[in-house]
């Protein structure tokens, strides 16, 4: 009985204290941004790298983009129920195409990027502060537009979860509305519990 009493009091005293969580004890390190990430089946960094690289390579290899004097990339649409920031995919494709020596066409800003552009043009022309101003009405429109989406199909039987991602990218002639090229990338990810 006495031993139990002492144990009870000891536990009571330690139990009453605020359980300050351990902070800063975890090990933090930098990872390889190109390493394969398989934390779960959600869209991750490996998928982002793979999709942007392979889709851009396919498009460049087709030679169709050089048929356009200028091009732009519309925001990639997300048709999944995952919070995928597809602006990363859009910008990844813009980077790959823009930095490729094989691409002779010129990238022009997309509709989404125009807000800052028009604000800057307006500021230069309307503030009365500048001697040399960028002139209004001299921007080039895109002859071609790249558009795309990502969708998924998910299955889960409690033991195995599978997600199939489909990325679709198109090159469209803006004036004619005709499709010049289409490419797809499929990714299947499995997770076993």
């Amino acid at each position: 009985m006495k031993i139990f009493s002492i144990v009870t009091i000891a536990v009571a005293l330690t139990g009453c204290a605020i359980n300050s969580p351990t902070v800063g004890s975890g090990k933090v390190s930098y990872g390889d941004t190109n390493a394969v990430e398989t934390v779960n089946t959600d869209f991750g960094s490996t998928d982002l790298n793979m999709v942007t690289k392979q889709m851009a390579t396919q498009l460049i290899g087709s030679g169709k983009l050089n048929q356009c004097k200028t091009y732009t990339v519309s925001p990639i649409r997300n048709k999944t129920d995952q919070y995928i920031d597809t602006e990363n995919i859009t910008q990844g494709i813009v980077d790959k195409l823009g930095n490729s020596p094989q691409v002779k066409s010129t990238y022009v800003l997309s509709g989404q990027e125009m807000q800052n552009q028009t604000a800057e043009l307006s500021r230069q022309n309307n503030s009365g502060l500048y001697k040399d101003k960028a002139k209004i009405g001299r921007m080039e429109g895109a002859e071609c537009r790249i558009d795309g989406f990502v969708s998924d199909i998910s299955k889960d039987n409690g033991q195995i979860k599978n997600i199939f991602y489909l990325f679709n990218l198109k090159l469209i002639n803006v004036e004619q509305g005709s499709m010049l090229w289409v490419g797809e990338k499929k990714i299947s990810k499995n997770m076993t519990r």
Partner: protein
Amino acid sequence: MVYTLILLLSVFLTACANNPFRSYKSETDNLIYQVNQGRLKPAITKLSQNKTDIMSHFETGSLYRMDDNYQASTASFNFVSSYINLWLASFHNGKLGAAGDTLQSGLINDKAIDYQVKDYEKVMLSTYLALNNISLKQPDYARIEIKRMYEIEDRIKNYRSVQYAKEQNQLSPKGIPTYQQFQAKSARNYNFAYLNSEAVLQLKNSYENAFSHYLAGFIFESLGENSLARPGYLRAFELNPNNRLIQTSINNLDHGNTSMPGSTNLLVIEEVGHAPQLQSQSFTLPWVQTLNNNTCLIALKFSLPKLVPDNLDHMVSFTLDGKQALTPYFMTDINLMAARYLRDNLPNLFTTNIIRSVRDYTLQGGACNNGVTLADLALAGLGQFLNNADERTWVMLPAQIYVARIKLPRGSHVLTVNNHQTILHLNRTYQIVSFRVMDNQVYFSN
């Protein structure tokens, strides 16, 4: 000696930060009464006296929001948010923390340990921080909170899947009833039926809710990020598949029919009542024990929290500019989420009760074996007195949330709810107004 120990134990237990004798139900009864009477400021003043108590920050965060003080509300919620950050980063989110907490709560009671923020409270906290930032006209900060909301959901999902997998592999000690046996034997003492009702079981889990994801969709749409808005609406629709407003929002997004020049896309959020309180409910189970040929009937006391929902408040219609009454769409029921959390957490509470039962068994078994002394009775009495379930919970969350979405011309408009009015100044493409109905009071936030 024993009397001294009892005295010391009592003094330490009552003096510590997490008072094991605390009745949060009694405290919040008074809080609800004050809010129902429209006395927000005295309620805030009283709660603000205890600056280290996480529960007071939960409640004052809600009260300040009702009082249109979004800076103070955000400060209170951020206090809780940093507490959750530490919890997420700490051993509490791993293996040792859970075991340590179970031991402490088992030997004293659940109130002695730091408050374990409920899964749905973590999600709703980020949701309300997002709403506060919208009220403060800081959409970028609202975006951060929305992102945090669904990332916390993922963390909870991973944490719970590991926890449930471990529980499934656990075997009960020999001679101790399993949770299923306990549930069957205690059906008359505790309302398991409600917790296992169809409405509760229909929820995917206790933390994902349509409102938070619909709000995510709305905020991303207002920021022009349709690729993130769509999954918000889609997840809301998965959680509330009968909601026509969500379906319409998805269709409008897909067809580019989102905003019109000169008009405001207004989201009206109706919050009804308060979240259920928890009340400790104790009952005894007879337990036959034989020691040294002495057979004793020992009464083991179990304490579980009982949900006390808000039965006073109900959804009301509202009018804009005195025109036809508008009925918002049902989005989320926090009563059901709280019930689902309690249902999913009951096996864990059962374990701590069993540990307490072993404590009482030791006390009573000692008396059974050696004969009863006054000291034995006193210690046994203290054990019984400690047997109380934790009543802490975020009560000032609403009981239910309803939503309406209206396109209105920019300018001033009058929103009327139960004869209470507020003037809306619409000057942006997307705006949000919310109101809380508590008894005869209506608290607007815009």
